[in-house]
């Protein structure tokens, strides 16, 4: 198969037809499904995710929207009327499962009239109008009842009464329904908002909607921008419309194949995997440039169309294959990540890179050959090799001069270069020790983003943004046992004594309900008992203790039966306990904080829960959004190390395999490890955290950065061994920089500019990913053009050809 380029040339039409057929086949598979739910971050079989899903299914959690309103006078007929009207309207909105607000909450009270579990806003009609009674007195009564209620406080109303909330739970929805349902709810909520009242919208659904926006940005705006930029860049360097068309065609087909396969596999797009589209566009250009540049060089030697075609493929195929393979390996190494989005991104982008290689190798020579043929047969001036361009010659001369100077500098100052590199390495290695991981999602948004401001407002002034849920499981009916309820009260009070107690805003459990109901009944009972004892001297059965929990399970059941007789009583209890009383849920709402502190808080909560519930034979499991994101913190750490180690080991093994030389392997390892260390060190010094975007930088950058190393070393070996003049290492180094440098600089600049476009993203991980990869590629280019040649000179004795060379050790004249 050594003569495969000849075979390919003779059957190029059939090969192209086959490629087109595959493209059409995969093109029909493109679906672009989107999913930005929490499962984006976890593999389907992750035990933590399975627990989270089970709890969501059991207690209908996980998909909620917080609509908070802020104002100086929220307890007014106008605002409460809006709350009632809006609550009723949202309850009927598509895909809304439940709405919780003061407008549909009941207040259990005991009065002379008896026990009353009446709606708090009973005197407001569904249209928000107030009916009957003295308005001012009624409003004051509502305010008092709301603020003194343990359930409502820091959940439906802030302790200072300046915030009210509507908590909207949704059905499990796909992305289209999520966007539609969110839009519908916000349309309702925004209608008739009273003057002087400010609205803050946060919660999981809001987060998903913003992520969907970011994903669309990654799929639409950035690819279009990068594509445009690449085409302009191609026009600049090739000065040929037909070559720009070649580049555009290759990118388009590579993208169709990648997206088709990605959809066919069943992967979905999210805020991380969406970055795959711009990445594939950026990475496709490199092979095109190298193939076109080399083909131009071959054209310069003259010869038939077939000989140019064949000799181009004979030279470029291996380096392009190797560069694509190493890039794909770097990307595919992300598959070891426990984060599903990162894994899928790695797999999809790796496939994209290999598609880009195949398409480039097939289409670029064929299209160039076709276009050259057309140019020769009458469309003169289209192909650059056929045109006389004095301006272009001047530019080429400038390039040659620049690269020759660089070559001379590297060869003459290689010791200095290596010494400076070691010094820089030391400084940035120190920076690595300062790198932090951050998975607090609020921090991934711009400070001006409405989601950020709303979440921060909720965080600092109201109910907090995050939650940790403690699931307590035992036999049927175990959760309603007074001893277990007392443990819940003990757990709650113990949380008030931990180091991070100020972050805890609200704790809701079955015990909270039982205590509240029992308090009301006990107050009524006290009055009744007093009367009874006066009448007959009888004794009361009310035997609650300091925990505020009834003394018997039967009393708990009967009091809960009373509570479930209210309109939403049953649904409220469904949030904290299963109907067979086998599983209880303790919801701890917290102010979101740094990942590290949340991990510590979750660990403290878990230890406390195990300590309190464990001895009673109850199983304790932690979940909740904050807990889950704290897990991502741990995953990111291991992900960073595992994926980079895998990528580095595989890429270096490939390099040793290719060159079968320890010296070449060490040279490439040095040149490529340096930029990675620099970038991770830079993250530490600059305070850039490891997040779902930046965690991929090292592996991705390594895979891309080594491309130039391969191109350099391939050319270096060719020049060193292939030349009849049998050049020395130093002369070869200069020649290689001069011949390969231009393409290396071009491809690196395109890549850097492409990734730099991502810096325009609103989503911080995308922005930082673009920034850091761009910087890494700049470091890598410097490494390949400066440090790599310098190490080549340093290894001069090891890599020089065996035959004596009188020129060896001297610069060419």
């Amino acid at each position, binding site marked *: 198969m050594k003569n495969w380029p000849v075979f390919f040339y003779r059957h190029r039409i059939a090969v192209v037809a086959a490629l087109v057929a595959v493209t059409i086949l995969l093109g029909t598979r493109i679906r672009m499904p989107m999913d930005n739910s929490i499962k984006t971050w976890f593999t389907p079989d992750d035990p933590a995710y399975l627990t989270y899903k089970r709890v969501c*299914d*059991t207690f*209908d959690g996980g998909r909620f929207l917080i609509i908070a309103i802020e104002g100086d006078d929220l307890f007014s007929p106008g605002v409460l009327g809006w709350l009632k009207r809006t609550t*009723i*309207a949202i*309850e*009927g*909105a*598509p895909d809304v*499962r*439940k709405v919780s607000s003061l407008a549909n909450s009941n207040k259990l009270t005991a*009065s002379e*009239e*008896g*026990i*009353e*579990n*009446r*709606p708090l806003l009973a005197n407001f*009609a*569904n*249209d928000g109008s107030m009916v009957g009674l003295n308005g001012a007195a009624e409003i004051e009564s509502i305010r008092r009842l709301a603020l003194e209620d343990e359930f409502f406080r820091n959940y439906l109303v802030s302790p200072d009464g300046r915030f009210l909330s509507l908590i909207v739970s949704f059905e499990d929805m796909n992305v289209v329904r999520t966007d539609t349902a969110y839009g519908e709810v916000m349309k309702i909520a925004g209608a008739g908002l009273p003057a002087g009242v400010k609205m803050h919208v946060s919660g999981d659904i809001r987060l998903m909607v913003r992520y969907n926006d970011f994903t669309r940005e990654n799929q639409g705006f950035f690819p279009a921008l990068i594509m445009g930029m690449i085409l302009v860049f191609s026009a600049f360097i090739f000065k040929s419309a037909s070559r720009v068309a070649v580049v555009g065609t290759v990118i388009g087909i590579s993208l169709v194949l990648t997206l088709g396969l990605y959809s066919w596999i069943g992967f979905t797009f999210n805020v991380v995997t969406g970055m795959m589209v711009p990445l594939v566009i950026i990475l496709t250009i490199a092979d095109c440039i190298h193939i076109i540049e080399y083909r131009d060089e071959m054209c310069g030697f003259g010869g038939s169309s077939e000989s140019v075609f064949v000799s181009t493929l004979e030279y470029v195929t291996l380096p392009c294959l190797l560069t694509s393979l190493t890039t794909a390996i770097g990307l595919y190494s992300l598959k070891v990540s426990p984060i599903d989005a990162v894994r899928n991104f790695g797999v999809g982008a790796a496939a994209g890179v290999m598609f880009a290689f195949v398409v480039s190798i097939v289409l670029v020579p064929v299209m160039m050959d076709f276009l050259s043929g057309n140019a020769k047969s009458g469309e003169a001036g289209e192909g650059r090799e056929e045109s006389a361009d004095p301006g272009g010659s001047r530019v080429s001369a400038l390039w040659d001069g620049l690269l020759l100077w660089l070559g001379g500098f590297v060869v003459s100052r290689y010791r200095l270069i290596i010494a400076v590199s070691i010094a820089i390495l030391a400084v940035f290695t120190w920076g690595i020790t300062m790198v932090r991981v951050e998975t607090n999602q609020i921090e991934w948004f711009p400070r001006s983003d409405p989601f950020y401001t709303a979440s921060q407002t909720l965080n600092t002034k109201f109910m907090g943004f995050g939650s940790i849920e403690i699931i307590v499981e035992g036999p049927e*009916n175990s959760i*309603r046992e007074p001893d277990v309820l007392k443990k819940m009260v003990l757990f709650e009070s113990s949380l008030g004594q931990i180091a991070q107690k100020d972050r805890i805003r609200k704790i809701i459990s079955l015990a909270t309900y039982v205590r509240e109901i029992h308090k009301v*009944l006990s107050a*009524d*009972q006290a009055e*009744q008992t007093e009367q*009874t004892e006066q009448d007959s001297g009888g004794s*009361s*059965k*009310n035997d609650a203790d300091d925990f505020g929990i*009834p003394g*018997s*399970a*039967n*009393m*708990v*059941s*009967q*009091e809960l*039966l*009373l509570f*479930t*007789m*209210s*309109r939403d*009583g*049953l*649904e409220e209890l*469904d949030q904290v306990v*299963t*109907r*067979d009383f*086998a599983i209880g849920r303790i919801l701890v709402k917290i102010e979101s904080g740094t990942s590290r502190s949340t991990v510590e808080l979750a660990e403290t909560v878990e230890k406390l829960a195990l300590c309190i519930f464990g001895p009673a034979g109850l199983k304790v499991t932690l979940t909740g959004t904050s807990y889950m994101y704290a897990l991502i913190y741990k995953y990111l750490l291991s992900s960073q190390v595992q994926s980079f180690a895998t990528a580095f080991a595989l890429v270096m093994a490939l390099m040793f395999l290719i060159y079968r030389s320890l010296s070449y392997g060490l040279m490439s390892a040095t040149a490529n490890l340096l930029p990675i260390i620099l970038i991770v060190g830079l993250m530490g010094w600059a305070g850039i955290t490891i997040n779902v975007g930046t965690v991929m930088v090292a592996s991705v950058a390594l895979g891309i950065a080594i491309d130039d190393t391969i191109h350099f070393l391939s050319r270096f070996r060719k020049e060193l061994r292939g030349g009849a003049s049998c050049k020395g290492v130093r002369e070869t180094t200069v020649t290689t920089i001069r011949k390969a440098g231009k393409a290396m600089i071009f491809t690196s600049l395109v890549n850097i500019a492409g990734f730099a476009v991502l810096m325009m993203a609103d989503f911080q991980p995308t922005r930082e990913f673009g920034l850091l990869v761009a910087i890494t590629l700049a470091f890598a280019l410097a490494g390949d053009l400066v440090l790599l040649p310098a190490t080549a000179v340093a290894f001069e004795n090891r890599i020089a050809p065996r035959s004596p060379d009188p020129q060896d050790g001297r610069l060419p004249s």
Partner: protein
Amino acid sequence: MKKSVLAIFAICAAIALAASFAPKPCLAQAPTADWVAKEVDGRYIGDDARSEMEMTISDGKGRDRSRKLFVVRKTYGGQDKLYLKFTYPNDIKGTSFLVWEHAGKDSERFLYLPELGRVRRIASAEKHGNFAGTDFSYEDISGRKLEDYTYELPRADVDHNGAQCFLLLSKSKDPNVAFPEIYSLVRKDNFVVVKSEYYSPRGNHEKTYEVLALEKVQDIWTPTQLLMKDLKSGGSTLIKIAEVKYNGGIADSQFEKEQLKK
């Protein structure tokens, strides 16, 4: 105008509404919606009745709870009195509930929790509250007032499990109710409501009521298995009624507050 169809065992009359017997239209006339509604509301369900009821309350996730009750009902000049006592499970055994309906005003309710040892008056007259922690509302149990709704007859000939039915649409005059529109299938031969669909103010179908078994007891058509499904939560309540006895001469003392403790 009497309004209660009361009836636990006639929950089918859940949508049923008060009424007096209305004259049947002559054969040449097509039945009207109002006539059908009055026939449903006025269906004879005995002057009094006692029965035993078993309720299975499911959360739709495979977690069920069962409850058993003893139920007694008696009509007093158009108003009903209802007495319920839980007999199973043991934790709520002895808990009892009394409802006195009053013409022109909210009904009175009393609850006895054995562990507390006292009768409590339940002050709220919330019609939409859950009945005994089930998916049925008080309104479903005690019936709706005929004059609170307007009626339409979208179809006069619907086949339901082999029985010919009217499709009756009841529209609430009060916009603040939970379900302003209810579509019901009314059997033509006995005016029992065999199926109802409840629609929210936004027009969403949220609850479905269905009679799974209908028997003739002492010549009175009696639904003996009733199912209410909450389509939003996925929960459901199945009620099975047994040992039904009509017109047994229930003493008035059965409906005194003191009876709750016994």
